């Protein structure tokens, strides 16, 4: 189902992309007053920073743009809800992501769709581009390949690597869940959580929610074949085809519940659905069969698994979706700009699970400080201060856990983050005011 307004977005977007020829460009950040400056910015002068870096490659984080530069890398195998549309077709999405990185996080991001379907080839390519970047954001790679790629690259790279569809989404969901539970007065380590869908985001979310304190046995996961349990007939083949789903099948669902979505929801306190576009994937009567004060995250795009008003009518207390036109938008755009702002500012070697947890707690705190309501469990995307707070908290966590190469005080970090995030916006504003961007 496509609403009229969505169609309008599609048309307008195509027009904008055509008339601007994409959305980002690169411009120098040093003053250039005469051609003589090139002797400093380029050869012969540039040989000196090169010499310094050749003696100590870490100097590349100080003498070049690398410290603030990341790549947004994809193989184009699972782009939005469009599926396997190839690297070229993924470019608008990667470019849009790069734009958000700059505008919301002050991070320079290069869109990098690559023709590499084979996971090991993909891994080799990313490893080989490490010298150019301070971090890597993986995007729109199909599951379960994405788990393997992230795992291997996390082991082998000395710069932070993040798969936004897994970790970004998981972090945003956890933030929302923490606050939703506060509102209904329940505890994470006591609730029964049903996950509908076992793709990249729900597998990552289940793992993060467990790290945050949920009991694995109290999690019920449903994939296209029904509820996962450790003696399901296809379990041994899962061990080979999707080790990550297999691991969850073993440790979740301690009661060995069987069936489909309705059975999974029975008595559940929370449902987190990231399956396929609705409506009608989750039915009202199934929400009615949940425990008191149901929390319903229906995150499929463009149409949630159940319309928010239907969930409400069925007794849902708190409802979140992935859409900006409904309250409680669970969106990884709340997470990735600040996480990368934080890790780049302290030159972190990795983004650990503790740092992802900290990002979730920080996001949750931000909304809580503003005042939680049933229709306000996570910050809205236009609350720009949230990016500053989360970036600083993530960076401090990197310092505290020993993965930061550079240590800074909270105050210095805060000033730097504010300056970098604001400067991206002020530069754009200035160019727009001068008519250079219109």
């Amino acid at each position: 189902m496509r609403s009229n307004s969505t169609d309008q977005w599609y048309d307008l977007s195509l027009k904008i992309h055509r008339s601007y020829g994409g959305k980002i460009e690169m411009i120098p950040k040093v003053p250039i007053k005469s051609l003589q400056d090139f002797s400093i910015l380029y050869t012969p002068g540039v040989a000196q920073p090169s010499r310094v870096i050749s003696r100590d490659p870490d100097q590349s984080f100080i003498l070049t743009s690398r410290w603030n530069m990341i790549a947004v890398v994809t193989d184009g195998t699972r782009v939005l809800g469009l599926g396997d549309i190839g690297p070229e077709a993924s470019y608008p999405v990667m470019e849009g992501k790069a734009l958000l990185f700059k505008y919301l996080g002050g991070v320079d991001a290069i869109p990098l769709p690559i023709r590499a379907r084979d996971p090991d080839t993909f891994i080799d390519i990313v490893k080989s581009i490490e010298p150019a970047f301070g971090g890597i954001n993986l995007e729109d790679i199909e599951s379960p390949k994405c788990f393997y790629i992230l795992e291997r690259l996390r082991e082998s790279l000395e710069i932070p690597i993040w798969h936004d569809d897994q970790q970004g989404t998981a972090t945003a969901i956890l933030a929302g869940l923490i606050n939703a539970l506060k509102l209904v007065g329940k505890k994470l380590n006591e609730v029964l959580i049903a996950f509908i869908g076992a793709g990249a985001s729900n597998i990552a979310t289940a793992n993060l929610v467990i790290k945050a304190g949920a009991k694995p046995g109290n999690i019920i996961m449903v994939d296209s074949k029904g509820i996962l349990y450790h003696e399901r007939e296809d379990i041994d083949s899962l061990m080979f085809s999707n080790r990550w789903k297999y691991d969850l099948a073993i440790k979740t669902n301690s009661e060995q519940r069987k069936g489909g979505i309705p059975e999974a929801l029975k008595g559940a306190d929370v449902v987190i659905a990231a399956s396929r576009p609705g409506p009608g994937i989750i039915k009202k009567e199934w929400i009615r069969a949940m425990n008191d004060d149901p929390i319903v995250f229906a995150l499929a795009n463009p149409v949630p698994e159940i319309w928010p008003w239907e969930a409400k009518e069925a007794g849902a207390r708190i409802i979140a979706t992935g859409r900006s036109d409904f309250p409680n938008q669970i969106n990884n755009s709340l997470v990735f700009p600040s996480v990368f702002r934080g890790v780049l500012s302290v030159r972190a070697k990795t983004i650990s699970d503790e740092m992802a947890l900290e990002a979730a707690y920080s996001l949750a705190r931000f909304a809580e400080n503003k005042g939680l309501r049933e229709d306000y469990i996570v910050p809205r995307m236009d609350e720009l201060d949230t990016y500053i707070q989360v970036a600083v908290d993530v960076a401090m966590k990197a310092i505290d856990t020993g993965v930061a190469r550079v240590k800074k005080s909270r105050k210095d970090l805060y000033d730097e983050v504010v300056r970098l995030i604001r400067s991206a916006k002020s530069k754009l504003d200035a160019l727009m005011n001068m008519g250079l961007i219109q």
Partner: protein
Amino acid sequence: MDGDLVIRRASRDDLNSIADLVLRLKRLNEEFDPLYTIRADAPEVIKGYIESSFDNDKIIMLVAEYSGRVIGFLRAEIRSRLFYEPPFEGLITDLYVLPAYRRMKVGGALIDKLIELLKKQGIYLVSAEFPPMNKIAVEFYENMGFKPLLYRFFKKVE
């Protein structure tokens, strides 16, 4: 793993539990190659296979029991090696542990018990057969100190 794990010889009372484990094992092989496609009558055939194994003194069948439930199974055949030393081997034809009880050294315990029984019969060689695509089995046996010693190639002829 606590003291609840018992490794013992299989008895006829275990038949149904064992048949379920063996069926799971054969189904897994189905993933690897069309030549491992399970026959429709496999469940009955498996029962017959296990039952007849009880009557054969060249076959050793062990179960792993956890809190009274059979959660793992091993079947081995004693075979003579006509041309080589040592002259006998205990060939593991089936080894399966339920997913929830993996990574607890149940498979290792079954093999240790098998080796103990083989030694009592003067047999000092143990082997195992499984599809080469089963990388998890390859890793498992390598970790147990096994090495590949035999290729078996297949070709379907029309």
